C-alpha cells in the first residue's frame, strides 16, 4: 500500500519542549487515519509539518513523495484547520471561487456546495453565519481541490447531530473514491465512527497504531452501573474491582472481569435493579495507553 503522506523519525523541539521525539506515521490512500492524543502530545506539530508550515529538526516528512513545502505537493491536499477565521466580509460563494482558483483540477462548484450542504448559504457573508454553518463552509473549502488527501482538524466541532452525520457521510464518500484522510478529533465517537486506523501519540511519539477494534481491545475495563443497597466500601474490597463510586442511588464500578462481578452483585443483592454493563471504549483504551507510556 502506497502512502499519501509519511513522517519518518521526525523530531522537533521548541525551546525546552520536545514536541516530537522520533515520530513515525503513514497515511494510507483510501483510509481514514485518526490521530489521537492528549493536548500537547504532538498532534498539532505533526499536522503543521504535513501542511508545510514547519519543518522537523531531524527526520523526514513526505507528501506524495515530495516535500510539503512544494506547492505541487500541497495541490493534492485539502485542509480544514480548527483555528482559522476566514474573511468575514466575503460571501460564501466568493470563498469557494477563491479557493478553487488555487487548484489545477478543482471540483465542480455546485458539487462542493451540495456535498457540504451549503447551497443555501452561497450568497451570505461568511461573518454573518452561525458557528456550525462556518464549519460547513470550511469543510467545503477543503474539498475544493478534489484532494487525494484531506487533513481535517476537529472537523465537526460545533456541528449539530444532523450536520455532523452529513459531514461524516461526505468524508466516507471521498474515502471510497480513494482519498486518504487524516483526522484529529476530541470526539472519540467520531474516530470510532470514521477511522480505519488509529495512531495514538504520547509525548511526541506514536506509541500504538491499529484498527479501532485493536486499540479498543487494549482496554480491559468494563463499566457496571446499577441501583443497589450494597455499600461502596463492601464492593471496593471485592477482587477484580478497580474503582467504585456512588452517584445518588447508583453504584458505578470499573472492572476487568465484568461477568464475574455482575454474578457476584446478584448473589449479594438479589433486589438489584437498573443494571447497565458497558464494554471499555476507545476512551478507556487511550487513557490506559497514555498512562502506561507516561509511567
Amino acid at each position, binding site marked *: *500500500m*502506497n*502512502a*499519501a503522506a509519511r513522517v519518518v523519525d521526525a523530531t522537533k523541539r521548541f525551546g525546552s519542549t520536545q514536541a516530537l521525539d522520533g515520530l513515525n506515521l503513514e497515511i494510507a*490512500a*483510501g483510509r481514514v487515519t485518526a490521530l489521537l492524543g492528549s493536548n500537547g502530545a504532538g498532534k498539532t506539530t505533526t499536522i*503543521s509539518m504535513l*501542511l*508545510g*508550515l*514547519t519543518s522537523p529538526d531531524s527526520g523526514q516528512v513526505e507528501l*506524495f*513523495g515530495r516535500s510539503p513545502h512544494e*506547492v*505541487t*505537493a*500541497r*495541490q*493534492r*491536499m485539502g*485542509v480544514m*484547520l480548527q*483555528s*482559522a*477565521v*476566514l*474573511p*468575514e*466580509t*466575503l460571501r460564501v460563494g*466568493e470563498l469557494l*471561487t*477563491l*479557493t478553487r*482558483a*488555487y*487548484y*489545477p*483540477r478543482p471540483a465542480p462548484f455546485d458539487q462542493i456546495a451540495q456535498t457540504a450542504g451549503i447551497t443555501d448559504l452561497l450568497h451570505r*457573508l461568511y461573518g454573518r453565519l452561525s458557528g456550525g454553518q462556518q464549519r460547513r463552509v470550511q469543510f467545503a473549502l477543503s474539498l475544493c*481541490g478534489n484532494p*487525494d*488527501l484531506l487533513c481535517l482538524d476537529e472537523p465537526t466541532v460545533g456541528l449539530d447531530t444532523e450536520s455532523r452525520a452529513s459531514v461524516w457521510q461526505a468524508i466516507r464518500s471521498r474515502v471510497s473514491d*480513494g*482519498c*486518504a484522510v487524516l483526522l484529529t478529533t476530541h470526539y472519540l465517537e467520531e474516530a470510532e465512527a470514521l477511522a480505519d486506523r488509529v495512531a495514538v501519540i504520547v509525548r511526541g511519539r506514536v506509541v500504538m497504531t491499529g484498527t479501532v477494534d485493536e486499540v479498543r481491545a487494549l482496554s480491559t475495563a468494563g463499566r457496571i452501573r446499577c441501583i443497589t443497597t450494597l455499600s461502596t466500601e463492601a464492593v471496593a474490597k471485592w477482587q477484580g474491582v478497580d474503582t467504585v463510586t456512588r452517584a445518588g442511588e447508583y453504584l458505578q464500578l470499573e472492572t476487568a472481569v465484568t461477568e464475574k462481578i455482575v454474578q457476584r452483585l446478584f448473589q449479594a443483592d438479589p433486589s438489584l435493579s437498573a443494571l447497565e454493563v458497558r464494554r471499555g471504549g476507545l476512551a478507556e483504551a487511550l487513557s490506559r495507553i497514555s498512562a502506561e507510556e507516561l509511567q
Partner: protein
Amino acid sequence: MNAVLNVADVSVPAKRVSALSILLVESRMEFMRMLRAPAFSVPVISFPVMFYVLFALVMGPPNASGGVARHMLASFSAFGVMAPGLFGLGVSLAIERERGLLELKRALPIPAGVYLGAKLVMASLFAAIVSVVLMILAATAGHVVMEVLQWCKLFVLALLGVLPFCSLGLLIGTLVKGQAAAAAVNLVYMPMSFLSGMMIPLQAMPHVLTQVAPIWPSYHLLQIALHVVGDPHTGNPALHAVTVTLEGVAFFAWAQRRLSKLR
C-alpha cells in the same frame, strides 16, 4: 499487471495554475472584502477627501485661481496613499496572523508572493480611488488647471507611492499582533501626517521638527507631488524618489525576515 491504482501512484497532473491567474482572483477578493469592511474603507477614502474639501475648498482663500487648491491637491494626494498601505497591510496582516488565516493560506497551494501581492494590488486600488476623487474635486470645484501629463503623473505617483507605506504597514503587521496593530499603525500614521508638512507647512513648525522631517517617507512623497504640480518644493525629486524607494525596500526586507521567522 497491477490493475489497482493507488492514489499516491497518480503522477502530479501536468496542468498548472498560473500564479498570475491566482493573483487576479486573490486581489479581486482582497479588494472586495476590504471595500465591504467600513472600518477600513470609509476612513481610508473619506478622510483625505474630507480634509481636501475642508482645507482647500471651504476654508481656502476665495479667488485664489486654483493655487491653494493645487498645492493642497499635492498634499492630500500624498496623504491619501498612506492609509491604504499602512492600515490595509499592517492591520489586516496582524489580525490574520492572530486569527490563523495566515497559517491556513500558507498551508494552501498558493504560489509564493501571491498573498502579499494581492494586498499590494488592493492598497493600490484604494490609493487610485482616493487620487481620482481628489483630482475630480480639484479640477471642478477647485478650478485647478494643469497639463494632462501632470494629472497623469500625479495618478501614477499615487499608485507607486502607496508601496513604501505597504512595506511599512507589513512590517508593523509582523511586529504587532491582532487589534493592537491599529493603535501601532496610528502611532506612526499620525506623526507622519503632521510632521512631514502635509497638514501644516514645515516652516510653521519648530526647527527641530523640520530637521527630522526627512526621516518620514511621506515627506519625500510630498516633495515629489509638489514638484509634479509645479509648486515650490525642497531638494531634488529624483533623490526623494530614491530615498523613499530605499526606505520601502528596507521596510520590506525587514518584514520578510520577520515573516520567515514567524511560525
